[in-house]
């Protein structure tokens, strides 16, 4: 729903990477993999 969407938009960027919580190898790989799939 819109509110959930907004909530996530606040927490994550459009690639699914969190603005605030530190990332690690697995998460970053995951983000990049998603970017690849979306592309």
């Amino acid at each position: 729903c819109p509110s959930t969407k907004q909530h996530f938009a606040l927490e994550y960027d459009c690639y699914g990477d969190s603005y605030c919580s530190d990332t690690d190898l697995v998460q970053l790989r995951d983000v990049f993999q998603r970017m690849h799939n979306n592309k």
Partner: protein
Amino acid sequence: MEKKISRIYPLSDPKTTYFLQVAWTTDLGSGFTVTLCNGKSAWTGTISEVEISKEASDMEMEREKYVDELQKALILDTELTSKYNFDFCEDKEISEIYHFSYEKNLKDVSFKLGSVKLKKVSDPVEVIKELIGYCLDYTAELHVKNEYVQKENKRLLNNWDDMHELLDKSVQVKEELEQELYSKFICVLNEKKSKIRSLQEKLKEAREAARQNR
């Protein structure tokens, strides 16, 4: 002059091994010399380019195809020659003239491919020595070729190993590069995230302060 030596067992004397030497310049079509030897005596004769053309036309065969058949019969490998029969006999009318003939056998029929008139060699010892000598030289030549090819083989094997090593290394480099990039990206990104957290904290405080001031 190229030569080929092989064993034959004449139809009229199948138990005796004869050594057939065929010698030619460019190819059999330009004429060739046949030498037969049974280890004790020797016979030799030549067929010319013209005679070959005549034999081809007698057989109503295209000359090229005929020459091709001759090659198979006389100078190619033993397996193939099993499709060919040879015979060797003295001329019934003219003494000291011999006929060496070769025929191709198809399933249940065989047809004569050609023949060469031979004469007995006065000094077979020389022919025998030549045969053995040629074999020795040819063997030595093959040895040299063998050695060269073996060396080439070794070189190629080494190259292959080197290349394989390079490929392994390249895959490893790729993986290391990926690891390295990821670790650098993570450092930079986490810096930015920590910055964002701090800014959010400050924004929260600022808004709180603004609210209290109001």
